[in-house]
Each structure stands twice: as C-alpha cells, then as structure tokens.
C-alpha cells in the first residue's frame, strides 16, 4: 500500500446554490497516474481547480501529504508543489515564451531577473518536448498546438509533486501525445503523481493506473484501468449503453461547391489546391503546425492570401474579411474557442446569434425568436447551463465548445469549416455532433473537417486532405483511407513534400 499524497474527504462545491460537486471521496497515491473522466459539466475541472486552490470548496477537507489544506489559494497550492495545466490556455500574449513558462516562478540574481538562465532552461524544456519553438517567440503568433506544448513546458518548469493535466491533448496529434505519455511515465518513475483528465478514453486507458468516473458532480466509481475498457468507461460516464459512435457516412454528390487553386500565404501556406463537393465531409489531417488552421483562416479572409484563387460554384470570389465569407455562406468553427470562438461575458443567446443576428431582427431584435433558437441548440447538443442567461465564463469547457459550434452553425452555411470541432467534448456529445454533421451533409451542406484525431477523420470523412508544413502532400480517396496511410503522408514519407 503506497503512501497517499492527496486525500480528498467529502468535497462538495456549489456555485450560487447550484451543486456541481457532491461529496467526492478519494485518496490518490504517490507516484500514480490518476484519471478523471465524465461528461461535459460533470465537475472534473471544478474538482481539480479546488485542489489547485482556484476555488474554495463548499464542504469537505483536502489533505496533502497528510497535512490539511487550510487556505485555498493558488500561492499555497504552488508552495505545496501542486502544478496545473488548465483546460483553457493561461498564457500572456504580450510576454514571450520563456517569460510565460517562468511566470510566477522566475529565476533571480539577487533582485534582478536571471533571463539567461530562464531562456536556457526553457530551451531544454522545449527541446525535451521536441517543439521548434524559440524561448523568445511571442505567444501571440503561435498556433494553439504550440500554445498547448508551452502550457506543458510551463507545468514541467519546476519540480512539482502533484501534476494536474486538464485535457492537455485536445489539440495535439498522435506524435505529440506519444511524446507526452513518455514524459508522464518518466515523471511517474521519479515519483511525481499525476492527475489526468481527458475525453479521449483510449488515452486514459493507456496511461492511467486508476480512473475515477464523475457524473453530474457525483462520484460514480473508481476502478483500476486494467479492469476497464473504453466501452465500460463510456457506459459508466453516461449511465447507459452507447450505440455505435460514428453514423453511416453520407455519399457526396458530384457538383463542386468550393474549389481552391494554388492558395498561398507567405511563410505559412504554399500552393494549396483542392475541391469540395456538395454534401461532402472533407477531412484535413496533418501534424501540428501543418497549416490546416491557416487554410481555414485564409478561406475566411482572416489571413491575407498572397496568391491563389478561390471558386464557389465555379465562379471566382474574393474574401477580404469574415463578413465576405459569411456573405458567401461559409462558416468557420475556430479551434481556439476562448481566443476567437465565443465571448465569455455573453450568455448563450448572445453568442449563438452573434454572427447571425440579421436573421433575428428587422429594426429591433426579436428576443423571443433568439431565445427559442438558443433553446433548440441547448436541447439538441444537450448543453449544460444554469440558465440561458448564464454567462459562458461559467460553463464547462465542453459546453463552451458546444455553444461555439452552435454559433457558427447558426449562420446557416452552405460550406462549414470546422477546426477541431469535438475539442474537449465527451463521447456522448461527440456522437451527437457527428450525427449532426452527417445530417447536414445529407442535406447537401459541405463540410471541411479539420481534426487531429485520426479516428474521427476516418470515421467521418469520405476524402481526406493531408498537409505537412503548409503544403498538401496528398488527397486520399475513401478506398485509400487508413491511419497508416495518412501518417505516411503527414510525416512526409509519402507524397510530394
């Protein structure tokens, strides 16, 4: 029986009388990797925020190394040696990479900052994570994937006894994830304890020793992962049997709705050419930094293209800004929900109708119509929220993602570009979203499906564009589709790189 590093004794949490965690009891052993799974809004993040001193529990006690935590402050948690990779990015755009990595724990010479040492240490960390980020880069200019790696580096930057990771792999591709797991195992050997939250049950099973299942703030079970498989986890999370997760693919029509010719963005994209059929779900696969997001952003007019042509229904169009894109009924679900997707200080209604407000007002806004539409989305994606008037900052990550999806959908697009659409979404909701997108497709709406989860690419797409370093290395038809094949193109072992 190994020693217990963390004892959670009957923890409960209420937000304005709403109970989101109820009487959680668990002891976490030193040096184990402890998984927490549960549907969106189950209370996972809340629990670990309490552990890391960001929230104060309504009831219950927490013991760290047999000492009772008396005051819940980030400072005390840090002094105890608890470090957190939060679900949402926590990086200062104005500061550089190394400044972020060491924020709050700077090295000093007497009273002055020891930048040399911090930069050097950052280089080591980033090298360890196999990223080609420079310590002096500005956060602002980095892609989400890179930001995620920096978050990881940040957590590793100083010796912590308990490392908490809240969905660290949502935007990472296979290779980075493998890397991360290697790291985690190495830390484990060093005796570091890790709490790992994820909706990717396969990973949970692979990396965790034990897993705790939460449902609506209730602790359902704690099991040894050896005795769990993904199906069992899913059922226990949702509380009922889940049928086949991917729906039957919809066969696209012959008509081409979107054609892109030699699209280039200096330094980011080069000669991107592909076409999109009516009712097709066209996958975009690639490693981190492949430039898929940039393709989307360029199509939306967020990035200025340096050359290339875009045709809709065979006629050339120019898109200078998102407004133009929406006019041509193209919608984009951003991969960075809090950065560019939703307004966290708005409620559901305000967010969902933000890009589509014209459909709700002549001169004045028709609030009733808005509310009904919002209700409709809340039901169809079962978005968990105290009320329609609750601000999004109080939503769980996954529920925010659902709202973000609803928002871009509400512009009633013909061409729908989704970037990591199921980022941080639980299995059950994923099923819903997959079905939803397939329905759209069968209704003749075309979809560009950017994802880092090969599984869902394979499960959803009839054709897949594979990118590498800003170039398209191959476009795989349904027959050629396989995990192995995609990886060959993505890593440049196959196709013109």
């Amino acid at each position, binding site marked *: 029986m190994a020693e217990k590093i963390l004892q959670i004794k009957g923890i409960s949490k209420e*937000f*304005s009388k709403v109970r989101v965690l109820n009487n959680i009891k668990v002891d976490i052993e030193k040096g184990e990797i402890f998984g927490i799974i549960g549907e969106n809004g189950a209370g996972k993040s809340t629990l670990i925020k309490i552990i890391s001193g960001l929230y104060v529990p309504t009831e219950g006690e927490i013991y760290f190394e047999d000492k009772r935590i008396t005051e819940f402050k980030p400072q005390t948690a840090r002094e105890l040696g608890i470090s957190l990779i939060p679900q949402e990015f926590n990086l200062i755009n104005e500061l550089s990479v190394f400044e972020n990595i060491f924020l709050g724990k700077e090295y000093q010479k007497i009273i002055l900052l020891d930048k040399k040492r911090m930069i050097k240490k950052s280089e080591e960390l980033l090298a360890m994570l196999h990223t080609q980020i420079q310590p002096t880069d500005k956060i602002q200019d980095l892609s989400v994937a890179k930001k995620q790696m920096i978050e990881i580096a940040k957590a590793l930057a100083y010796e912590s006894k308990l490392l908490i990771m809240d969905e660290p792999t949502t935007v990472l591709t296979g290779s980075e994830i493998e890397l991360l797991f290697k790291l985690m195992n190495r830390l484990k050997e060093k005796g570091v304890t890790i709490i790992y939250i994820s909706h990717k049950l396969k990973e949970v099973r692979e990396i965790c020793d034990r897993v705790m299942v939460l449902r609506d703030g209730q602790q359902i079970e704690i099991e040894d992962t050896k005795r769990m498989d993904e199906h069992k986890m899913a059922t226990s999370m949702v509380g009922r049997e889940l049928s086949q997760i991917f729906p039957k693919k919809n066969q696209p029509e012959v008509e081409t709705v979107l054609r892109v010719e030699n699209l280039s963005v200096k330094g980011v994209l080069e000669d991107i050419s592909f076409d999109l059929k009516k009712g097709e779900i066209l996958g975009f696969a690639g490693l981190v930094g492949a430039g898929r997001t940039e393709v989307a952003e360029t199509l*939306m007019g*967020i990035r200025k293209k340096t050359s290339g042509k875009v045709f809709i229904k065979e006629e050339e169009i120019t898109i200078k*800004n*998102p*407004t133009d*894109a*929406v006019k041509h009924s193209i919608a*984009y679900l*951003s991969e960075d929900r809090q*950065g*560019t*997707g*939703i*307004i*966290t*200080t*708005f409620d559901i209604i*305000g967010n969902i109708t*933000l*890009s589509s*407000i*014209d459909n709700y*007002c002549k*001169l*004045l*806004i028709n*609030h009733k119509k808005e509310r009904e539409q919002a209700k409709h989305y809340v039901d169809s994606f079962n978005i968990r929220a105290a009320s329609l008037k609750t*601000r999004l*900052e*109080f939503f769980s990550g996954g529920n925010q993602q659902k709202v973000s999806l609803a*928002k871009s959908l509400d*512009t009633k697009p013909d061409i729908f570009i989704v970037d990591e659409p199921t980022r941080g979404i639980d299995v059950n909701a994923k099923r819903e979203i997959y079905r939803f997108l397939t329905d759209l497709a069968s209704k003749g709406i075309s979809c560009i499906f950017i994802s880092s989860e090969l599984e869902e690419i394979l499960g959803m797409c009839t054709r897949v564009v594979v990118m590498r370093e800003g170039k398209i290395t191959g476009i795989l038809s349904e027959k050629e589709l396989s995990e192995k094949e995609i990886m060959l193109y993505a890593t440049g072992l196959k196709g013109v790189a």
Partner: protein
Amino acid sequence: MKISKVFKGFSMEKWGPLLALAILFVISAFASPYFLKTRNLLNILRQVSYTGIIGLGMTFVIITGGIDLSVGSMTALVGGIGILVLNAMGGGPWAILVAVIAAIALGAGFGAANGIIITKGKVAPFIVTLGTMAIFRSLTLYISGAGEFRSQSNLFPEVGMGYFLGLPNPVWIFIGLAVLFWIILNHTKYGRYMCAIGSNERVAKYSAIKIDKIRFFAYVIVGITVAVTAVLLSSRLNSISSSNAGQNYELDAIAAVIIGGTAMSGGSGSIFGTVIGAIILGIVNNMLNMLGVSPYLQGTVKGLVIIGAVLIQRKNNK
C-alpha cells in the same frame, strides 16, 4: 473572486446605482428642508440634463472600450458656431431650426473626425480625444477672439428655458434620448455589436462584425449628443463663453457613466445606470450648495460621494 462576485452580485450590478441614489436621496431629504421642494428637484433635473445627455453617448463609447475627452470643448465649439449661424440667419424660428440642424451636423462631423483617427489611424481613443479636446477649445477661442458668442435671438432662449407639461424642455429631451439609447443598446444589433467589440475584439472580428464601423459610429453618436447639449446650453444661456463653456463636462459625463455601473473596460453597460449616475452627481452639487459646505471642502465631499456611490455597489456584492 471576480467570477463569484459577478455571479452572486448580478442583480446588484443592475440595482446598485438605484440603491446609491435612494440612499443619497433620503439623506438629502433629511439634511435640507429645501431639497424636496418641486422647484429644487426640477432644477436638479435640468442641471443634470446637459452632462447627462452627453453621458448617454459616452456610455456607448465606453462600452466599445473607448473614451471621449473632447466632449467638453466640443460643446463650446458646436454651441459657438451654432450661435453664429443663428445670428447670421436672423434669429427667427427658421433660423433656430437651421442653427439646430447645423449644430447637430457639426457635432456628428467632429465625432466622425475622432472616430476616423481612432479606427483608421489605430490611435488610442484617450490620446486622440485628448488632442481634439485641445484643438476644439482653441478653435473656439480663435473664432471668438477669446470672447463670448452672444445670440441676438430673443426667441432662442425659449428652447432651453421653456417648460412642457411641468417639466423643463431639457429634461424631456434627456428622458427621450435615454429611452432611445436604451432601445439601441438592448434591442438592436448595433447595441449587441458594441458590447461584443468591447468585451472581445478578436472574437467580434472572427464573428464577421465590422469592428471599425461600429466603433466609428459610437463617436459620431457621442458627437450628436454633444450637439444636443450645446444647443440646450447655449439657448439656456443665450450665449457661449469660449474660454470655459463645457469645461470638465468630459469628467462629469464619464463619472455619470461609471457611477451608473458601466465598466470602464467596456463590453457591457447600462443607459438606465448612466441616467441615475448623472442625477446622483446633480444631487451632490445641489446639496453642497443647500448645506452651504465650505467652498474649500466641497471638492472633498464631492470626491467622497463619487467614490462612495460606486463603493456601495461593490460592497453589497459580498
């Protein structure tokens, strides 16, 4: 911390200003026998209308995350030129109409100037309007040779002095505009967009909102409110003094907005609150006179009340 505050104190955000007003009102009623006299209350309302109206426009600007320091000197300039037009046209009813239209056009124009530099030039609103504050004032001085603009119309004063159904005209206009602005903010897409831009510009941009356009119009609108005030003021005084008409209006207007519970950081705001805020400031000035507070200490009292009025709203959140 913040989160839970916003969460618990939500209704407070809405009713805080009203509470502050209520408290101040009760205190005043007891402190001075003159306070509750209708004439006094009417005076207060009229006195607050001028900066209050500007405050309405300022609320929009602040919601978009901006600020306008030039409103004070703009009032002087617009009012001054308005009077010149009035006199040139001979001071009759038509002259007044033309002058008013001219003033509003001017106000919108000056606002547009601010807006253009801010949005196209990408210069901080604070600095742009700090600059135009100096510019507008100096143009006023230049045109009038540091003197006064005097209207020769003896009809004009009626506009600003007159009563309608027992309320002074400026008060009616204040109320009317408040309602209009409330509708714009809460029931039109323009209002929605202003909030979106104020709370997260990037998201707004990704959501296909024409950021520059929205922000630009916020400054045009505040310019128009300035024009309205300028007309009311100049007709009330039947003149505009180039050197100190409208001085410190920017501060009063902004104070009203913030006392009204609108966040300096933008993203959300309340027209209703701004009206309350303006009235609070008016009552303070009124009481300082009614209670005959020492001229030297008036500033202290006023400062304390302003801070207190906002503090109440916060504290009760806990």
